[in-house]
């Protein structure tokens, strides 16, 4: 795979491992620019006969893996639009995100999210597309969407249900609280918990180990153990777009965007 250096992310391949580096300031907020570049990446995954055996996704931003959707862009984008047009615009964006995330979820190589710091909202959802999450002790995981009058819209809840007991899934969704990496490892969300700064090194070690095994068997194992809940994604998109039409969402987004204080990421 040829290397690519973009505005929000870059990728390269070394031996049998592809590395996707997120580097959009301040904390890899996922908006139209990131979606466009993720789209280029996922199309390559889909079309190329991959020589790689593993894919690692990680962040170069010190504050974390990703703070989630670009709420400022979302709020600004909805200002000039009537409700139906807003919902249509959001639906198009979500369909694009789902296309990309589903391609990463299904790619026939071992995928590892190496995370640190903030793993919130859409960023959490991106990490959940991977076969496993390696987290350093600074990582915190959160679905804050209900604070905005929304639900996670990038496939997060169906994917989280794939990995966790439903009681904790409901707790995370309905309280919007964050959990630390130690808790995440205890409940099986994180497969390997490591010291601060070590997640990428450990992910590379996993990739190296996985490369030893027969690729056909590895692909078969992955397809068997990791079903992709396409029907649930469609329902999630429908509910998300419906909620986007409610006034509570615009109010909550405005409060977030206009918050000049230090606490926008706290409930």
């Amino acid at each position: 795979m040829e290397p690519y250096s973009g505005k929000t992310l870059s990728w390269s391949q070394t031996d049998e491992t592809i590395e996707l580096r997120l580097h959009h300031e301040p904390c890899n907020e996922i908006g139209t620019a990131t979606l466009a570049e993720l789209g280029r990446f996922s199309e390559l995954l889909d079309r190329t006969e991959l020589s790689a055996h593993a894919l690692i996704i990680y962040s170069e931003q010190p504050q974390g893996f990703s703070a989630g959707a670009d709420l400022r862009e979302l709020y600004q984008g909805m200002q000039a639009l009537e409700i139906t047009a807003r919902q249509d615009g959001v639906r198009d964006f979500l369909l694009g995100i789902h296309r990309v995330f589903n391609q990463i979820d299904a790619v026939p190589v071992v995928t590892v999210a190496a995370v640190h710091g903030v793993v919130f909202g859409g960023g959490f959802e991106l990490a959940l597309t991977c076969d496993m999450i390696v987290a350093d002790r600074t990582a915190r995981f959160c679905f804050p969407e209900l604070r905005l009058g929304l639900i996670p819209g990038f496939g997060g809840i169906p994917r989280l249900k794939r990995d966790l007991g439903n009681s904790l899934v409901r707790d995370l969704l309905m309280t919007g609280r964050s959990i630390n990496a130690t808790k995440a490892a205890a409940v099986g969300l994180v497969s390997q918990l490591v010291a601060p700064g070590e997640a990428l090194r450990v992910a590379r070690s996993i990739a190296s180990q996985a490369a030893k095994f027969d690729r056909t068997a590895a692909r078969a194992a992955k397809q068997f153990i990791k079903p992709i809940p396409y029907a649930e994604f469609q329902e999630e998109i429908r509910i998300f777009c419906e909620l986007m039409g409610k006034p509570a969402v615009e109010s909550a987004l405005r409060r977030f965007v206009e918050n000049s204080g230090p606490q926008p990421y706290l409930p």
Partner: protein
Amino acid sequence: MAIAGAPEQEHKGEQTMSTLDQTLLQLIDLAASHFRVPATELNPDDDFFKKLKINSLQALDLLTKLETHFNVELPDYELQGVTDFRTLADRIQARL
């Protein structure tokens, strides 16, 4: 140590107070160490966002440190409106 003849309530109050003070001291020390400010400059009633010059993402980082140190789980919604060390220590204490 129980003082002979002292009402149980007073003894209980003294014990709770000193445990909370210990938590408060440890919290201030951790915050000072994590954000590299002298602990002597931090007071229990300070607004830690202003005093430490941190935002909410950095506060979450501190939260992780506190949870690990005190071996508690502290839902961040319980921190709504909490901006001073004393109240934060109280929230932690409630989970010990």
